[in-house]
């Protein structure tokens, strides 16, 4: 601390805590102690308070003890002469500030229910998104887990002008960071400046307008705390572990732009507890000695064009930015950006024209690395608002290249194209849909750039499995249709091969420790018929990943002697599990929910739970926010199950896995499935239908209940009986 900063932060903390106390008193008066309060759709209550103090604030009455805590944490103001030491007290004041923030903000949810929007996007006239719900947390949190987003910048205030704001935001985006926006300076707010500069904001572009007041900083802190609890498996009240988790793994920092008020200092003091330093554009005092943060605590007077690189250096972060030769910004942060109708310059596919993407293998002498050819008109040849057919043909060659890698590489086309600012990509294969924005075209983007992007990115991420890659782009309908016909045949062959792949047919499974830096106790082993529970990695992906990086997160596991064919247990897997869990677990079953199921981490796509009354199981995906028949919402289930536990009666799995033959096959498989959210059922309908036919119960999809039938076991039991669901006649699930 510096004396000036400590004094200001403590004063700011007093103000905010006093405000929280006042808000609490008024709320208590108006609604009474039993009035429920909470941020939308979260199992973590007021997350900072929950994580740090272990107190679940669910009612107004619960706030009292938190405010008492705040009071006792608040130190007296710093004195002019012979002051007492202030570092520890100021950090405490910072924590009290974040607790008070949460109370103020949650009361705002009660007082002005429409103040904050729900979901990922802003709407007309309303920009503040408020607390991220658990769906956003899990979806976005996975990016923190897999490294596509190393951290976030909490911006307070505003830049001198919209152009500077845009530059700062885009630089942060290029560095793959999330930008959380708060508070105002000079009557202006960073988020509004971005809109003014024509930048798309919202979760999809990683530019998140949290709130107009400094108290909204708690939404950033709450995101960080929940990341530690949901992905790190840390328990509420384990404050030190949660804070160190953030110091070590979430590369966040505060960027106050403009006058740093005492209330901002108070927020910054709170952030320092997490190891998040402050980098200011104004000449405030600096705190250079290290210790609570990894490096400096406060660095100031940094010119705007150096702000982001300075912040990253101070936070101790290394960001490797892809050098992709395109005239627009490029990076994962631009993946979620949309190209709206009004901005549209060119559109391909999406049902409007024919479009197809195909990755294939050629002989070494057939491929010239880096060659990009365009057959047909390019953007420069057409007018704004046009449509073109498009075939993207990517041809690989190399000694290590295998047919099995083709679909994996092909799936990347979606991401790689999307990363370019002003280019939108949806779908894959023959349902690909590409939009190019006017703004990007103005900067000189052409269709041929797709080829340059793919060449650069494939080499960067997958260079280990091929030697050469060339790209052919076709925009003439006839040729595109020819390619489509060839590709369709290849798709069918591939699908058949993947479908036919069984656990019995391979000797090697793959471990996945991709999320282990975030969920240290979870040990994932992926087999052909048990796709990774995050839904992102199947056996083939893991195999390819191992080829690409032999010391990476996917390691081969010799499955060894089969100890239990019914429940799916192998000696080699057990040995690996024992080692990887550092002795915490010595076995689990791949195919059971009842008997020693596989461990679950916070990033699973779905969680299945047994419903004893129905003699079956239900499953729920992370996008479904409602109640389920097991009495818990997804987010509560994930909170209870995540963090690497093996919990009989519950198991995490991917969506795709539901329709794989080995899904809980030890307990009866798909025949046990009695309930799932409607939308999930629709999403997997084609495959569900197929497997239902295969097991000889073609009507099974209609027998599975959803939330329209009921969300209690009693309700759905009646439905199952009426439909004659097969689970009812199976052996008892629990003995």
């Amino acid at each position, binding site marked *: 601390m510096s004396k000036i900063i400590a004094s200001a932060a403590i004063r700011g903390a007093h103000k905010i805590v006093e405000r929280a106390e006042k808000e609490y008193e008024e709320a208590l008066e108006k609604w009474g102690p039993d009035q429920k309060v909470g941020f939308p759709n979260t199992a973590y209550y007021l997350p900072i308070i929950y994580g740090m103090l272990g107190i679940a604030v669910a009612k107004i009455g619960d706030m009292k003890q938190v405010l008492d805590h705040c009071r006792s944490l608040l130190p007296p103001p710093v004195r002019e002469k*012979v002051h007492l030491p202030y570092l*520890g007290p100021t*950090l405490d004041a910072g924590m009290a500030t974040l607790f008070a923030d949460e109370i103020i903000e949650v009361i705002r949810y009660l007082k002005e229910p429409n103040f904050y929007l729900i979901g990922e996007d802003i709407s007309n006239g309303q920009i503040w998104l408020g607390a991220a719900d658990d769906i956003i947390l899990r979806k976005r949190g996975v990016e923190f887990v897999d490294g596509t987003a190393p951290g976030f910048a909490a911006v307070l205030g505003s830049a001198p002008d919209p152009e500077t704001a845009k530059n700062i935001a885009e630089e942060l985006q290029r560095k793959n960071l999330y930008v959380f926006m708060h508070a105002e300076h000079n009557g202006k707010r960073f988020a509004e400046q971005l809109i003014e500069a024509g930048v798309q904001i919202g979760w999809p572009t990683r530019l998140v307008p949290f709130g107009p007041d400094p108290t909204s900083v708690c939404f950033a802190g709450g995101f960080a705390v929940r990341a530690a609890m949901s992905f790190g498996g840390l328990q509420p009240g384990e404050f030190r572990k949660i804070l160190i988790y953030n110091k070590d793994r979430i590369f966040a920092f505060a960027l106050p732009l403009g006058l740093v008020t005492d209330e901002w200092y108070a927020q910054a003091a709170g952030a320092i507890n997490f190891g998040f330093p402050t980098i200011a554009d104004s000449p405030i005092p600096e705190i250079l000695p290290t210790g609570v943060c990894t490096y400096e605590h406060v660095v100031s007077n940094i010119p705007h064009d150096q702000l982001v690189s300075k912040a990253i250096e101070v936070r101790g972060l290394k960001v490797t930015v892809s050098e992709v030769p395109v005239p627009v910004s490029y990076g994962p942060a631009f993946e979620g950006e949309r190209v709206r109708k009004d901005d549209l310059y060119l559109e391909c596919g999406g049902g409007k024209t024919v479009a197809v993407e195909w990755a294939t293998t050629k002989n070494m002498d057939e491929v010239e690395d880096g060659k990009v050819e365009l057959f047909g008109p390019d953007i420069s040849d057409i007018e704004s608002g046009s449509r073109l057919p498009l075939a993207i043909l990517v041809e690989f060659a190399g000694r290590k290249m295998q047919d099995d890698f083709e679909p994996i590489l092909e799936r990347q086309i979606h991401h790689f194209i999307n990363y370019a600012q002003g280019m939108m990509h949806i779908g894959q294969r023959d349902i690909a849909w590409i939009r190019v924005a006017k703004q990007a075209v103005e900067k000189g983007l052409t269709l041929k750039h797709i080829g340059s992007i793919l060449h650069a990115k494939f080499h960067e991420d997958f260079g280990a499995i091929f030697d050469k890659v060339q790209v052919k782009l076709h925009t003439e309908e006839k040729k595109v249709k020819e390619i489509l016909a060839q590709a369709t045949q290849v798709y069918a062959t591939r699908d058949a091969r993947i479908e036919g792949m069984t656990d019995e047919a391979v000797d090697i499974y793959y471990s996945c420790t991709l999320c282990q830096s975030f969920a240290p106790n979870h040990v994932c082993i992926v087999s052909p018929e048990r796709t990774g529970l995050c839904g992102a990695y199947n056996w083939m992906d893991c195999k390819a990943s191992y080829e690409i990086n032999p010391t990476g997160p996917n390691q081969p596991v010799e499955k060894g002697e089969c100890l239990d064919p019914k429940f799916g247990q192998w000696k080699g897997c057990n040995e690996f599990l024992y080692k990887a869990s*550092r002795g915490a677990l010595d076995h689990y079953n791949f195919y059971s929910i009842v008997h020693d199921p596989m461990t679950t981490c916070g990033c699973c796509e779905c969680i299945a739970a047994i419903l004893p009354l129905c003699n079956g199981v239900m499953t729920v995906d992370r996008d479904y926010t409602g109640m389920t028949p097991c009495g818990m919402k997804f987010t509560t289930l994930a909170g209870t199950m995540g963090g690497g536990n093996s919990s009989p009666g519950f198991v995490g799995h991917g969506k795709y896995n539901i329709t794989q033959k080995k899904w809980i096959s030890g307990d009866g498989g798909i025949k046990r499935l009695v309930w799932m959210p409607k939308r999930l059922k629709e999403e997997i309908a084609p495959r569900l239908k197929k497997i239902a036919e295969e097991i000889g119960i073609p009507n099974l999809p209609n027998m599975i209940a959803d939330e329209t039938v009921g969300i209690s076991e009693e309700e759905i039991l009646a439905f199952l009986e009426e439909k004659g669901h097969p689970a009812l006649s199976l052996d008892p699930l629990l003995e």
Partner: protein
Amino acid sequence: MSEIGDKTVDAATRTMLEKAAGEGIETVFDRAEKMKPCPIGSEGSCCRNCAMGPCRIPAPKKKPKDPEKAKKRMGLCGATAETIAARNFARMIASGCAAHSDHGRGVAEVFVAAAKGEIPGYSIQDEQKLYQVAMDFGVEIGERDIKDIAIDVGEKALAEFGRQEGELAFIKRAPLKRQEIWRKLNIVPRGIDREVVEIMHRTHMGVDQDYRNLMLQGSRAALADGWGGSMVATELQDILFGTPVPLVSKINLGVLKEEDVNLIVHGHEPLLSEMIAAVSQDPEMIQMAQSVGAKGITVAGMCCTANEILMRHGFPIAGNFLQQELAITTGAVDAMIVDVQCIMENLVNVAKCYHTKLITTSPKAKIDGATHVEFDEHDAINTAKRIVRTAIENFPNRTSKVLIPDERTDIVAGFSHETINYLLGGIFRASYRPLNDNIINGRIRGIGGVVGCNNARTTHDSSHLTVVKELLKNDVIVLTTGCNAMACGKAGLLTPEAASKYCGEGLASVCETVGIPPVLHMGSCVDNSRILMAATAVVKDGGLGDDLSDVPAAGCAPEWMSEKAISIGQYFVASGVFTVFGVTFPIMGSEGMKDLLFNEFEETLGGKWAFEKDPEKMAKLMIEHIDKKRKALGIDKARERVLYDMEMRQKLDAA
């Protein structure tokens, strides 16, 4: 007669020396001029352990031509200079250890009685510290009543004194590597009293006559002090009276108030002074003071009693060891209450020249001619009241001219190792990491422990301040206790404002960050145990080696005089710390002992002694040692900033 300016660097002391001279009062400063120290005794070459002696075998003034012959100087029994110096040194350790530990025992006895609720006025003030010590002693906490936990803790603590075998409980607090060194050398204390008794036995005529072997036992007894008696005293006092937290107060004779009834509590134990301090604020007492014409009651401390009530309650300090006679010389002290240790017998003579009542309170420490009011812990409040009343009643008897020097300095104190730990990270991130980090990155060069007494053989406070300022200038943060803390306090070094004034840029920036003074007052002389704990915390936090001897740190006692200082020095050396003493050193008559203490110990114990009178050179020795340790740790060069990418994060240890 030398100038008063040569006697002290403290303005208040100077004023009072002038007053004393004018009034014909003889003080320790005068006697130091009249009587020179015995040259043979001061080098440790006099043996009076049997009636065949005393044997005096002084080292030759010039280097002998035949070193073999020089070696042969010996007492009647054949005791060599080595044996004699080692025996004397070991006995000093025994005495020092006994003093600290007997203090600790007294606290433990009161603690047990207080826990049982048998003595009104004492209670458990620091519940958390009780749990802390309970964990060390293996006392179950669970859902048990505080009272039961406290009784168990007290009894376990008390048992440490008479323990016959095994290891003292607090030994386990030390770094693992340090414990191993002790075990390998077989110097882990078995019991506190036992090690003192064994020294007395082994130094008896005709027993242990191998100076190395004697010094092993000396180390064991010293460890029984630092990690035993002293630590027990500190910890139990914290539970009874509160673990120190940061606070402000004032220091120097100017804290006395002419219009108030002034009591000075002097000595070492807080048991009675705590009560006197409390009782002095009783409205009934204040009213009584006012009834005799005083405005109020001022209680100020002297020596380590002062440190005790300063650290826990912020009572002002009148001065350090060499100011005790001078306090009375102000003519404003209505009663000086003394307990044990460092109380000059001459106080009784000075008091006679004024109206001051010198009140002895300990059955262990009476002074012929003083008033004795025996402190009965079962009736502590009434004892305290009686004493305060005596002072009040004495107020109207003030006769001579009162002169209180207008010298008082603001200080910040209260730096227990727990408080330092808290200050560096707050409730949620408390740790020594920021300290270690800034030592590693070089903003702080190292840690200096500067402690110890005053000694009338050297200019009062001068060496203390010179060493400390030199260390600060070189970015060495200073931890202090005892009379050094007071010297620093009087000179304004215990304020946060001192950082920018005296420190190198690096240390100043860290002080500004934490808001601390560059010199941290950690308490009384038994509280040197707090320095051991702070140093241990530094080791355990990581990045600065695995043992206390790896840390870039050094200790010194520039103006030492008591046997307690020798015991403290030896336990720091035996804990792996390089320790420099000033003024004089009681083994200089023995080449073997010099080699053992100044060199060999570094091989065996990891720490060693040094003797250096010149405070600037003393600081230099410490800094050189710190630099040596920095080099060994590989932190003598600037380090590159490590930037983390995803791969490195994935390799992080699991949370």
